[in-house]
Structures are given as structure tokens and as C-alpha cells.
């Protein structure tokens, strides 16, 4: 089966366009048959999308078996990664008696290994933020000064210590959140919404093809 290059090139663009149109149409076309079809279609798309994890799985396996084979520095880390990945998969899919993540053994390892690792790695940011606060955040410009003052007020107002020092810190924080914050964020959100709209148009019209991978 040999498809011409043109079809190969334009097929994904046509599919994207139709898929997008179907999704948008559902909002504006209130015809029961059509809406029911879209509901079914969305479930199809969900199932298909769930298969995307295969790519990450295979990629990691390939990278780390290669490292292992070449005995590159730190290859034992690759072993740990592969063991963790395959053991967790087997535990959840093959040996879970159809319970998947609800199986007690899976939950045990999830809670005692995965959760602490994830939480700890992200909690490291607390140290970085403190260190940057000390070493890099400077009132270089009027703007940076406004920003830092507002930040200090919010930090005081949103923890018990602020109101304990001066009760007005609470209301000041509420006001910053309700008024200038809402105004700024609203302007930004409207801008971003338009940006996403315009990006969406370009994707549907085939003017933006990055998602199709190299050479599209």
C-alpha cells in the first residue's frame, strides 16, 4: 500500500480540521442526533488518547536500555528506573486481579514510594525560592519595587502572622486580590484566550504543524 506523498501530507491536516469542526459544531448545533453522535465520538477520542502513554513508555525503555548496554556512567540509575517502571506496571496491570490501581499492594507502593518522591522533589522549590529571595530579588526598577511590596503585603496577609501583627493586613490582601489582581489577571486572561483562539484557528487551518512532529 503506497499512498502518494500529497495524501500523506494532507491527510493529518484534513483530519485535524474535521475533528476540530465536529467539536466546535457541537456547541452551536443543537440537533439531538448530532449531539448524541458527538458524545459517542468524544468517548472514542478518549480511548484513543489513552494509548499515547505507550510513546513515553517505549522512549524511556529505549533510552535506558541503551545506557545500560553501553555501561555509561550512572547505568545503575537506569537499572533502577527500568525496574521501577516495569515492576510498577506488572503490579498494576498483570498482578492486580483486575483491580489495577485499587489493588492494596499497588496502593501501598504508590503511597510509600511514589507520593513521597513526587512531593519531596517539588518541595525543593521552597529552598530555591528562599535563596533567590535573599540573593536575587532586587528593587531594581519602580516596577520591581511595586511587585515586591505587593508580594510582601500578600505574604503577610495570607498567613496568621500578618493579622497578628496588624489586623489590617488581612483586608489589604483581600483588596489586592479582589481589585488590582483581578484587573490585571482579567486583562491577561482575555489576551491569552484570544491567543489560544488564534492558535486554534492556525492549527485547524494547517498553518501551525508543530504537533505533527518533524518534517510536517
Amino acid at each position, binding site marked *: 500500500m503506497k499512498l502518494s506523498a500529497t495524501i500523506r501530507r494532507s491527510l493529518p491536516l484534513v483530519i485535524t480540521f474535521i475533528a476540530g469542526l465536529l467539536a466546535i459544531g457541537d456547541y452551536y448545533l443543537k440537533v439531538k442526533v448530532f449531539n448524541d453522535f458527538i458524545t459517542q465520538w468524544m468517548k472514542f477520542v478518549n480511548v484513543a488518547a489513552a494509548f499515547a502513554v505507550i510513546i513515553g513508555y517505549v522512549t524511556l525503555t529505549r533510552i535506558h536500555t541503551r545506557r545500560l548496554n553501553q555501561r555509561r556512567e550512572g547505568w545503575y540509575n537506569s537499572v533502577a528506573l527500568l525496574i521501577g517502571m516495569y515492576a510498577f506496571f506488572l503490579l498494576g496491570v498483570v498482578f492486580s486481579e483486575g483491580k489495577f*490501581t485499587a489493588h492494596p499492594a499497588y496502593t501501598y507502593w504508590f503511597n510509600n514510594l511514589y507520593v513521597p518522591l513526587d512531593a519531596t522533589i517539588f518541595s525543593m522549590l521552597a529552598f530555591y525560592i528562599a535563596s533567590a529571595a535573599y540573593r536575587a530579588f532586587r528593587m531594581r526598577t519602580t516596577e520591581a519595587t511595586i511587585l515586591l511590596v*505587593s508580594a510582601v503585603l500578600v*505574604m503577610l496577609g495570607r498567613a496568621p502572622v500578618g493579622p497578628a501583627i496588624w489586623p489590617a493586613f488581612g483586608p489589604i490582601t483581600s483588596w489586592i486580590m479582589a481589585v488590582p489582581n483581578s484587573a490585571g489577571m*482579567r486583562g491577561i486572561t482575555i489576551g491569552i484566550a484570544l491567543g489560544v483562539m488564534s492558535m486554534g484557528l492556525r492549527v485547524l487551518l494547517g498553518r501551525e504543524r508543530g504537533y505533527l512532529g518533524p518534517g510536517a
Partner: protein
Amino acid sequence: MITPEIVGPLIAAAFTLMVYSFFYRENKAYRFAEHVFIGLAVAHGTVISSKYVWDVALSPLITKGEAFWILPILVGLLFPFFFSKKYFWVYRIPISIVVGTGVGIGMAGLIRSQFIDQIVQTIAPVSPKADIWSSGSHPINALLIAIGTLGTLLFFIFTREQKGLLLYASHIGRWTMMIAFGAAFGFTVMARMSLLIGRMQFLLDPSGIAWYLIPVAIVVLAVVAFAERSKGAKK
């Protein structure tokens, strides 16, 4: 007695401390923990996706004979063509379905929720009785919000030179945004600290056993530091 209830928190504590050892310096223990984490993350995503595919498509296909489920499964199975040089274009079929649908859905909802409704909220009826400290519907606050929003929007107008009135307006916009970013800054500090507090709560919980490992970690660190120092002295 060694029971799973004791071993579990000890494993958790050990990995927590291995990650924090990074703050002394980047080291093997940290990298080991990081690799385990990456492996587990991908595995978890795969397990939970398998469950979904099984529940929604495979199981009705096998037990109830709902043949149409074969379709999304086949489409999903085109994803691995990602790894083929020759047939890479096949991978573009499922990805374009998923991206097209996602983009379409997002766009359709966006106009209302993030555009019209935002304008609507800005010009909602005011009430002088509202609390000036916390409510945007107090007339003064409503006016300030509108001015700030207008300024921000005008700042993001790119096809006109910033001159005269537009320049002033965009200054207002920039300052409004700076206050907003200050709030974001403060809240981010709060979030990051909360995460650390959560870990510390786990490590220091007097009813748990995780804190037993803290002295162990300190001893290990001291030994490593001492060994390094004597090595350095020899050199």
C-alpha cells in the same frame, strides 16, 4: 516486629532524605531517587490508562461483543508508529484526531468563559453597599478594576505605536499587572513553603517512625563530608 506498616514509612523517609541530600551537593543518592521517580511516573500513567481502556472499550468488546470499540483501539494502536522512520506519517493520524478535538473543544468554550464572561463580570451592576475591602462590586472597586483591565488590554495592543494616550494607558496596565504579579509571587512563596511543610510534617511526626532516619542521615552526611575533607587534605 517488621511489618509492612513499619517498612512503608521508612522507605518513604529514606527516599525523602535522599532527595534532600541534593542540598549538600548533587550526588548519587539524589540521582538514584530521581530515576526511580521518573520510572514510576510513567508506569503509573500506563497502569491507569490501561484500566480506562479495559473498562471502557476492551471489556465491552470482549464480554458484550460491542464491536465498534475496536475502532478507537485500532486508532490508538497507531501511536507506536512514532518510532518508525518510514511510517512516521501513520502516527500523525491519531495525534491529529486528539489535537483537533482538543483544540476545537477548547476554542468553543473559550469565547464564552474567558472572553465574554470576563467582560460581563467587569461591567456587572454595582452596589454601594458591598464591602469595599473584598468585593469587586463596590462602585470604586468596579471602576478601578475596569481601568486596570483596560490598561492591561491596551498594553497588549501591538499594532499601534505606544504614544500619547496609549502610552499612559499601557503604563497603568503595566503597574496593575505588577501588583497582580506581586500577589502571584506572594502566593507562590506560600505554595512552595506549604509543600515543604507537608514533607516536614511527615518526617517529624512523633507518632510515626520516619524521624528515626534523620539521625542516620546526619551521620551519613557527616561521614561523607569528613571522608571528602581528608581526601582533599591528602591531595
